[in-house]
């Protein structure tokens, strides 16, 4: 993972630039709209990269698999104990996701949890069938494809990133059974939402 904690600092700068850009375009005449548009697009693409860095972080991508199993851990190994995706992404009879994962983290036993724990649908896979992370373009394209993303428009995606319990979970993923904290995505939830907003307001551009 190329991103590190320094992202937080640079994203703050980016947001500042984006805000400046936004406010400055407002005061320009029509003649400068294309230039403003491309700045906005650039800002949107940059924001997308930030969003992508979170989406492909283990806390998120482990449930956005292309296979019939979820993944676990920072090394993203196939989920142990022969757990299967099942038809609705909720596991199979007698071995559901909720067989173990409850509506909140179980820190005393090391099992993560959030409301309605389940796999993202295959249409929202961000890996290939060999568990390799898909490139930014591909992930962006499928994320913005309404036939794949559950009919979400830009604001809908933003709301999903803001409110969906499983998304929120990624930023408070709880402790493992050895007592260590699970590692966090490269942005905080607030930063993630902010980057999403910039990207959405730029028209969800894809690289």
């Amino acid at each position, binding site marked *: 993972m190329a991103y590190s904690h320094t992202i937080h600092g640079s994203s703050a700068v980016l947001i500042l630039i984006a805000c400046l850009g936004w406010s400055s375009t407002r005061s320009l005449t029509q003649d400068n709209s294309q230039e403003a548009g491309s700045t906005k697009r650039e800002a949107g693409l940059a924001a997308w990269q930030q969003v992508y860095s979170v989406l492909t972080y283990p806390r998120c991508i482990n449930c956005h698999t292309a296979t019939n199993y979820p993944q676990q851990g920072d090394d993203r190994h196939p989920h142990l104990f022969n757990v299967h995706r*099942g038809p609705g992404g909720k596991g199979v009879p007698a071995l559901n996701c*909720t067989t173990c994962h409850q509506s909140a983290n179980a820190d005393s036993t090391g099992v993560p949890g959030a409301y309605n724990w389940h796999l993202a649908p295959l249409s929202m896979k961000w890996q290939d069938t060999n568990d390799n992370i898909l490139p930014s373009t591909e992930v962006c394209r499928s994320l913005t494809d309404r036939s794949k993303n559950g009919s979400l428009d830009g604001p809908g995606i933003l709301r999903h990133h803001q409110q969906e319990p499983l998304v929120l979970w990624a930023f408070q993923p709880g402790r493992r059974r050895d007592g260590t904290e699970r590692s966090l995505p490269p942005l905080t939830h607030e930063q993630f939402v902010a980057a999403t907003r910039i990207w959405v307001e730029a028209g969800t551009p894809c690289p």
Partner: protein
Amino acid sequence: MQTYKLMVNGQAREVSVDPGTPLLWVLREELKMTGTKYGCGISACGACTVHLAGVATRSCVVPVSLIGDRPIVTIEAIGQDRVGRVVQDAWVAEDVVQCGYCQSGQIMSAVALLKIRRNPSDADIEESMGGNICRCGTYVRIRKAIKAASQQLA
């Protein structure tokens, strides 16, 4: 320590325990119900399987604080359920058990499967029972018993 009201096998029970105590140990040591077994403590083996609001659940990893008012059914009462009774009878008729330690969990998983899929295929059985360990290796007879139970329930 906190007090929790739990619905276990149709009975209201009250326990005072540390909130992080897994349901497994609440059942075994607070309520003295030892039918549900400890095999690994990390949800790897399924010996601790109970039904929580009808969902097969691994009680060794679920802290009592997350149960809420969801009803709990354990191996001790599953025989009162028609599917449960048929599964237990099939287990006996097919002479499934060896040491028997895993079988509470196997039966609870099998019942959960049959309640949803009355006529499971080999693949269904393998997937749904795929997370239950039997160290003695009674898997061949487990498959047979599930199919026998399925026929009984048809």
